[in-house]
């Protein structure tokens, strides 16, 4: 039951249009503070980096297609697999999930008109963009980071890796971390405070629970990465000795700090996927999730337990068992929240009346691969077995099933699912199904043989391998699979690109969706909802009465907030309408601030510390401009 704009409501809507419309053209995009536009910019930027990372992946697979490959020199290979890791994790998955999906959908789903801090939202996008370009700058100068995305010292120290390539990595991560921290603060406050009246915690869509969990995980995990990178740069550029055993430092300190961030990171990658799955499954199964509270809980709990498992990346460094055992226990127990969700999804599909359209197909593929990746993950929590296959292709297989199979599949499904909402047009169902089967098969063919190669003893990160060890055939199969996979992805992009212009009009609610975003027009207006919706269950679109009442209120011109650039704020737990906020409008300052920061980090890499300081001061001045105009303080 979507919003209907009756003649009587028209003047109100036009008035809202006037208030909320931003500047036209390119300027509008640069100065925008609209969470939807920012989400779209995130989407295309992340997609571009996905392309780059994909090309790197294909290079790797082509190099390894047969023994003694010579496509890439060892130097080139190291840079390629390092950039592949960095790109896919920091520049694709996180921005695509939190940045694109989160930014576009969270405010819509909770019935808000924008994020809590729109300008900070824009800022985190621009910082993300610049940090991505910053890290690829290293590739352009012909000398990219080459010590792996895990970047273990002392291999990454000045002694064994002269040149500034690792500095791009270190500063790039700190730079990128600022963006993610700002974004996660923004998400948490938005979800806590901007929920539509009546959306108490128990009425919040599961999608939002997932993003809440992600935001918290990012908030607490990133500092550890930033500190690790800070130490690294102090070591490399000022000759400190955090990681230098000869001076009482500890190479393992890097590994600990990195994985304290690195494992929560894995759940930061996977949780939005859970969220997307829990948004798609009820819609196509035409029923509410089985055991709603447990699913919500599981999403939060995964993020929390994720902080207690990091040493299972380090079982082979020779820690005492009394230390590792704590991590082993946590690594095992964290299986349970995942299992809860898994079986809740399955039973929901089973007991509902599922229509297997493309989005749901991708979710089913996600479930299958999540089981495979999850199970191989359990085996890695068993210390002896882990010590056998650690750093072998078995691990590569495991985390690609988790990250690609389980995290990227829902992203692809979500791209199909919300495409009609974002563009107002339908994608091509048949092509969609074909693209799914291509991607599904490609993923399996690429990554499954890696389990076997790993158990046969093939280590990771080798730029080549000798023949005659029983590895060659499996590697050949993997490489072929990689190309199938790539073709599937290209087909998806092509399908969406064509449908964007040729697709049939979609209407507001093509799938009988369950959450609020389907009630507004497609694409949604800048103010999202003409009338502030009121909510009485986690599936507001299935509460006909509420939506009808919203329409009546629209006609009476009630609850419109048409006096200014305004949106409601509500209480944290029970979402009673608390106050009316006036939101800042479009502004040029966020991109400028990000640009100044980019200057700071570039100067730091070049070791011009005074120039860096100058940029920092300039950055402070932009913040004054930020508060000076356009926002009524």
């Amino acid at each position: 039951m979507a919003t209907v704009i009756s003649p009587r409501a028209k003047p109100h809507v036009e008035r809202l249009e006037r208030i909320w419309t931003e500047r036209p053209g390119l300027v509008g995009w640069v100065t925008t503070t609209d969470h939807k536009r920012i989400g779209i910019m995130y989407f295309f930027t992340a997609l571009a980096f996905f392309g780059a990372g994909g090309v790197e992946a294909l290079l790797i697979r082509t190099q390894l297609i047969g023994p003694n490959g010579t496509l890439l020199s060892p130097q080139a290979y190291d840079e390629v697999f390092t950039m592949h890791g960095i790109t896919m994790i920091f520049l694709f998955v996180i921005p695509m999930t939190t940045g694109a999906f989160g930014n576009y959908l969270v405010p819509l789903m909770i019935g808000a008109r924008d994020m809590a801090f729109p300008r900070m939202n824009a800022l985190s996008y621009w910082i993300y963009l610049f940090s991505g370009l910053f890290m690829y700058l290293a590739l352009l100068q012909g000398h990219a980071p080459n010590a792996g995305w895990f970047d273990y010292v002392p291999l990454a120290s000045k002694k064994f890796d002269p040149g500034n390539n690792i500095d791009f990595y270190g500063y790039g991560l700190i730079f990128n971390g600022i963006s993610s921290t700002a974004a996660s603060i923004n998400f948490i406050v938005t979800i806590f405070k901007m929920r539509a009246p009546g959306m108490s915690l128990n009425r919040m869509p599961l999608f939002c629970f997932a993003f809440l969990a992600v935001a918290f995980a990012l908030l607490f995990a990133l500092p550890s990465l930033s500190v690790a990178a800070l130490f690294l740069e102090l070591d490399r550029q000022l000759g400190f000795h955090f990681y230098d055993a000869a001076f009482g430092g500890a190479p393992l300190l890097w590994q600990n700090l990195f994985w304290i961030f690195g494992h929560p990171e894995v759940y930061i990658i996977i949780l939005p996927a859970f969220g997307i799955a829990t948004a798609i499954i009820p819609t196509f199964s035409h029923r509410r999730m089985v055991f709603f509270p447990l699913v919500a809980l599981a999403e939060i709990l995964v993020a929390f337990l994720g902080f207690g498992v990091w040493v299972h990346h380090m079982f082979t460094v020779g820690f005492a068992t009394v230390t590792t055992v704590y991590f082993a226990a946590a690594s095992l127990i964290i299986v349970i929240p995942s299992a809860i969700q898994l079986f809740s999804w399955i039973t929901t599909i089973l007991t509902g009346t599922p229509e297997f359209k493309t989005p749901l197909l991708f979710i089913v593929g996600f479930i299958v691969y999540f089981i495979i990746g999850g199970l191989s993950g359990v085996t890695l929590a068993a210390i002896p077995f882990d010590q056998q296959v650690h750093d072998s292709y078995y691990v590569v297989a495991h985390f690609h099933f988790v990250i690609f199979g389980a995290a990227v599949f829902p992203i692809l499904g979500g791209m199909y699912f919300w495409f009609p909402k974002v563009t107002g047009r339908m994608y091509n169902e048949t092509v969609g199904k074909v693209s799914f089967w291509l991607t599904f098969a490609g993923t399996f063919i690429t990554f499954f043989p890696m389990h076997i190669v790993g158990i046969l003893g093939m280590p990771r990160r080798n730029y080549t391998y000798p023949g005659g060890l029983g590895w060659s055939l499996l590697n050949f199969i993997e490489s072929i699979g990689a190309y199938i996979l790539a073709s599937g992805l290209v087909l998806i992009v092509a399908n969406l690109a064509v449908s964007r212009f040729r697709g049939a009009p979609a209407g507001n609610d093509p799938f009988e969706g369950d959450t609020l975003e389907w009630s507004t027009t497609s694409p949604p207006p800048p103010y999202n909802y003409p009338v502030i919706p009121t909510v009485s269950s986690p599936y507001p679109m299935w509460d006909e009465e509420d939506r009808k009442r919203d329409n009546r209120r629209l006609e009476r011109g009630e609850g419109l907030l048409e006096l200014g650039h305004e949106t409601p704020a509500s209480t944290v737990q029970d979402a009673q309408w608390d106050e009316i906020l006036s939101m800042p409008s479009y502004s040029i300052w966020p991109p400028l601030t990000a640009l100044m920061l980019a200057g700071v980090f570039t100067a730091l890499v070049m070791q011009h510390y005074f120039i860096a300081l100058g940029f920092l001061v300039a950055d402070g001045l932009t913040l004054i401009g930020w508060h000076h105009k356009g926002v009524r303080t």
Partner: protein
Amino acid sequence: MKGTPAVTRSSAAWSAAAAGRVSRQRMAQPNGWWGMALFLCAEVALFGTLIGSYFYLDFQSHQWPPAGIKPPGVVLPLLATAALALTSLPMLHAARSARAGRRGSVIALIVIALVVQCCYLALQILLFRHDLNQFTPQGSAYGSIYFTLLAVHHAHVLFGIVLDLTVLFFLVYRGLTNYWLIGVRGLALYWHVVNVLAVIVVFTQLSPSL
């Protein structure tokens, strides 16, 4: 759910009195307060990591501090930190009187705190320079973590001082509007956390001497 009329347009509160009234009516903490609180969560995690690293290096070394470096002196840092911690009181009252809509006392209280904080920072910088003459961060892992930990902490004090000045400037220039009332509360929150961290940092710094 309550209808629109009952809900306050908080951003329209231009006078100190109105801002105070809005602030008292609010059922939940304002967005700005939450933003600062969450930012401080990240800061706490940051210091947690630094202090964790300190003890990690401590535990895995033969001798801490290494031979040739004498453990830090106790008295001055402790006194300075105590003085800094006391600035939580004026900040607490600044937030209170802001909610009561008393602009003048807010400004006065922040200035008092500001003076103490500046003295603290100055003293700490002197101590820092003095330590640098004793031993260097390039000399050992102990030096590295010691100076990094302190530098990061002092950077936070410096940042807080800049925040003080910003808020003061706008309190004078814009007055105690709803926006800057929330600013004052955020500022107070920031200082409470930084002061607690200062105590933890100083005890970490002095742990070899205690």
